[in-house]
């Protein structure tokens, strides 16, 4: 019995690095105690992290699947698990199980397409693995545009990586924006949905969007006015996942289980679901 794999029984993970991204987002690097990556994953998949006696919570794996050494999680402080993680130090062990959920169709639908990533705030976290995956296999995709916005410059997650790596890549345009003007910011100011409209992308792109529901809603509207179809737009709902294995009964929206049928959905698929998300 005890030798049968049980998906609910987690592995041990060790936090080997903690990076402060924004005032309320930290990025944690996690490996197994013997220094390896806990398991392989695909872009957009999630892992269940837990701290005994504190709780379990699902997080998207923000590091790219092409990184074979470790996983990273960008985590915003919001409830007990995340609060606890935010005070954790290097060397702290946690438990990890996964991967959960379906990945973005990077090798199928996305292949050969121009990609437009739209993210707001911590919404970049689930997209980061996709973006870096696409950067890694750069030749498999067309042009990549990234629109990313946050409340302020300080709230932009992974700012360093964006500045030092993404913007320098060929064929990648990064469009950053912040909600309100501030000193030391000479980039765009304004909300993401408006910025997307302003940028007025060609409608041949596949869009991957993640952020606060209100941002998604208005960005979608914006994209529609630009002439996009819902079939071109993908998003992820990993926040709705709980047990990760399609059994606990929480994450379903209509007959779809986010943890099994998602968390990645195409917007036309979402449209078919009852309005309960």
């Amino acid at each position: 019995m005890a030798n049968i794999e049980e998906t609910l029984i987690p592995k041990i993970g060790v936090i080997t690095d903690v990076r402060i991204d924004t005032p309320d987002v930290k990025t944690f690097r996690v490996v197994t105690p013997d220094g390896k990556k806990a398991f392989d994953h695909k872009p957009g998949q999630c892992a269940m992290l837990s701290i005994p006696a504190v709780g379990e919570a699902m997080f998207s794996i923000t590091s790219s699947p092409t990184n074979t050494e470790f996983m990273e999680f960008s985590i915003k402080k919001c409830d007990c698990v995340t609060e606890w993680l935010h005070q954790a130090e290097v060397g702290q062990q946690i438990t990890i199980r996964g991967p959960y959920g379906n990945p973005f169709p990077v090798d199928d639908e996305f292949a050969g397409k121009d990609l437009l990533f739209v993210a707001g705030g911590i919404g970049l976290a689930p997209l980061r693995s996709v973006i870096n995956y696409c950067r890694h296999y750069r030749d498999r995709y067309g042009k990549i545009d990234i629109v990313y916005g946050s409340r302020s410059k300080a709230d932009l997650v992974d700012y360093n990586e964006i500045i030092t790596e993404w913007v320098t890549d060929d064929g990648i345009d990064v469009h950053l924006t912040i909600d309100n003007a501030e000193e030391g910011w000479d980039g765009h100011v304004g909300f993401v949905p408006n910025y997307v409209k302003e940028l007025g992308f060609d409608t041949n792109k596949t869009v991957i969007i993640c952020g606060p529901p209100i941002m998604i809603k208005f960005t979608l509207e914006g994209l529609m006015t630009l002439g996009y179809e819902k079939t071109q737009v993908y998003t992820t709902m990993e926040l709705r996942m709980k047990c990760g294995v399609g059994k606990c009964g929480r994450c379903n929206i209509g007959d779809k289980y986010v943890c099994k049928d998602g968390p990645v959905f195409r917007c036309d698929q979402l449209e078919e679901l009852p309005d309960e998300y």
Partner: protein
Amino acid sequence: MRKCKTDALDAVFAEIAKSSLLYIPTDTEKGAEYKKWSDGMKMSNALNTVRSPKDFFFPQTEDLMEFKVNGKEIEVIDTRSEKEDFVVFGVRACDVKSFEILDRVFLIDPCDSYYANRREHSTIVSVACTRPVETCFCQTFGIDAAAPEGDVSCWKTDSEVYFKANTPKGEALLAKLEGITVDADDKDVTAQQEKTREIMKKLPLAELSADKFGAGKTEEFFNAPEWDELSESCLGCGTCTFVCPTCQCYDIKDYNTGHGVIRFRCWDSCMYSDFTKMAHGNPRLTQKERFRQRFMHKLVYYPSNNDGLFSCVGCGRCLAKCPISMNIVKVMKTIGKSE
């Protein structure tokens, strides 16, 4: 088919108990309950147990694992152990069907080894109904109370008990009973079945149909205005979900004993206001949404994902136990607009 005299049932129990744990429904002051058989214990004639037999596979709480925490280090202790073989004797047709419904949740990939372990080690002996009551509506979901499934099906007549093995597990069990049972034809059984089926037709809920529901009907019913009035007086307690043999929502929680942390799984209820509360918010904020979820799940979502199989077996427990007497029958009639 094999049979024995009714008064040989004690010997049957004794024989089964020799090689495995045996549970039978037995009468208590508060109704029938499954109990571990011991010498002299009589099987209840009650139609059904107060509590459903889902506990055998999906107990109210079960420990999943333990953690030891030492400074920054964590040790995971796998506390699983191989279960003993056990036999549940006397499960009604509706409840037997509930196991299939649970199986389709727990045994699909990734398989839940806790559930699977119990399931593997169990042998289910069903017993056919002869006196269904007004709250019974198993036939609505295509269940034949007179022909229960299970590893072994069994029929009790006035003087005899008939056994029929349906699975290799069932055959193995009957093999053990060879000394007590004799071969039999199915004449009496068929007669009994016919009689029972006649009664079924006369039940008050006999006309209740699930035809309007099923896979792909989300749009049709999700926004029905009737959900408001139906859910209006719902207390948001978990009675219906906990007495239900097919409700399987759970929560995983940790308990810090001071010496370690036990991670356990426990029943949870989609009727509870915090059921879907997660870090980012709660997608089902009102009782209406929660109420709708439960019935939509049983009547539409589950069938959508499970070849049209409904996740209600018509056992009638919720009809008897809901504090405010709201139940799936009233929901089906109202939402399905039938009288």
